[in-house]
């Protein structure tokens, strides 16, 4: 069984070649090396000759499942490589009816946790790069669904989520909390990278792309940014697969996962533990209810 990065990478290329040569897939989406050592970037392979572009290393952060949305109305059969979180995203997208299983081939890849590219950019060359924040808390490094799989399953290094960061905010006074979020949302430039990279943000059209509707003004200030932040966090509540991509890609370093994790924590304690995207049968917590939900509004 291939287990090292090099072995898995080699196997990736072999499978891609096989799928393309046999015609089983019309394209394969994987990762190639980017401009810098700490950057890997999605690549589309259409010909077996190009499979050597594919790589597998500690910076293959991008979730490739979301790219399947682009091909739902085409005749393409698309193969993707998928880490644990990518397969959870895949399940979520199937549940949201945004991709079709019969149009895709999922090649599962067990993951040892990706490194923190943002930190890598700040550290001197050769320094030890820490694991990405979301990966530290990953409980599903192995693919939860796949058509094929490369390598042996790894042992999860985390068994329980760490809510200490959320609790630290909860412990603040109302004014301190507000001041904290103000300082964070003042930074937001509303580039919508968090939204566009998020597998849960998969709506065909978004209210934030319709400024004429009056839903949200294009005036960028802390208040409107916070409006955007809360709206998005609530929209992905119960559907967030905790890949942490939103926070990782934010050019302003807004701690977006702190919002998402707050919802996760509350959902777990109010409606029972929920793990988004583990299967395609459990409905998202906010798309159903129970008559025995806690009652606080009498």
């Amino acid at each position, binding site marked *: 069984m291939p287990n090292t990065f090099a072995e898995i990478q080699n196997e990736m290329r072999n499978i891609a070649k096989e799928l393309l040569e046999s015609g089983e897939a019309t394209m394969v989406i994987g990762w190639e090396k980017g401009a810098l050592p700490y950057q890997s970037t999605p690549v589309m392979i259409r010909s077996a000759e190009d499979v050597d572009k594919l790589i597998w290393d500690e910076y293959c952060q991008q979730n490739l499942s979301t790219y399947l949305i682009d091909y739902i109305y085409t005749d393409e059969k698309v193969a993707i490589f998928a880490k644990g979180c990518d397969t959870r995203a895949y399940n979520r997208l199937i549940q949201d009816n945004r991709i079709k299983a019969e149009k895709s081939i999922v090649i599962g890849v067990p993951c040892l946790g990706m490194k923190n590219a943002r930190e890598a950019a700040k550290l001197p060359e050769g320094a030890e790069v820490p694991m990405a924040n979301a990966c530290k808390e990953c409980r599903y490094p192995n693919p939860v669904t796949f058509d094929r799989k490369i390598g042996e399953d790894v042992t999860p290094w985390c068994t329980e989520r760490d809510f200490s960061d959320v609790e630290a905010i909860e412990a603040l006074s109302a004014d301190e909390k*507000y001041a904290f979020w103000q300082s964070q949302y003042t930074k937001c430039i509303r580039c919508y990278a968090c939204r566009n990279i998020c597998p849960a943000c998969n709506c065909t059209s978004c209210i934030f792309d319709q400024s004429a509707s009056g839903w949200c003004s294009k005036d960028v200030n802390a208040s409107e940014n916070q409006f955007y932040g809360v709206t998005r966090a609530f929209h992905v509540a119960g559907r967030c697969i905790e890949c942490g991509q939103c926070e990782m890609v934010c050019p302003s370093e807004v701690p977006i996962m702190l919002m998402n994790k707050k919802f996760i924590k509350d959902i777990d304690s109010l*409606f029972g533990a929920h793990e988004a995207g583990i299967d395609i049968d459990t409905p998202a917590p906010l798309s159903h209810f129970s008559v025995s939900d806690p009652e606080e509004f009498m």
Partner: protein
Amino acid sequence: MSDNSVETVKDTAENFEPKILVFACNWCTYAGADLAGTSRLQYPPNVRVLRVPCSCRVNPQFVIRAFQRGIDGVLVAGCHPGDCHYTTGNYYTRRRFLLINRMMEYMGIDPKRFHTRWISGAEGPKFQQVVTEMIEEVKAIGPNRKLRDDMKVTVNTPSTDEIVASVESDTKVVDDNA
């Protein structure tokens, strides 16, 4: 990132009369408020009632937008669970607002400013009691400034001389938000 050289509106704490927005479900709470009225139950006039088809029509944006535009307290009210005109709408409301209440608190909004309550069409006195209590509570903690995105724009139709003068005058430029 914002740099609007327009003064934001500031409230004064003296003589503070809070503005309370009530999202009232058409079938229960709105009827309850109506009953309070026809029964001549007195409550302070600080309440603005906004009728919605069902309490689950209210989403978090409505609540935040209210705070942005100068409301001091928000009440979302609908039928008791089990009594929804649309059978299950308020069960969704319950799930949703259990989370939103906590999120608003997490964002630093005083929980006294934001409530969800079940008030049926027969509960005129409850409507009176809930809003009266809320108004008193909000009055005690003062005007809300959090999340405010309000502004006061005064537009003059100046004469030619005035425009030239205002260009030359030493007008204040508000510094970037610190």
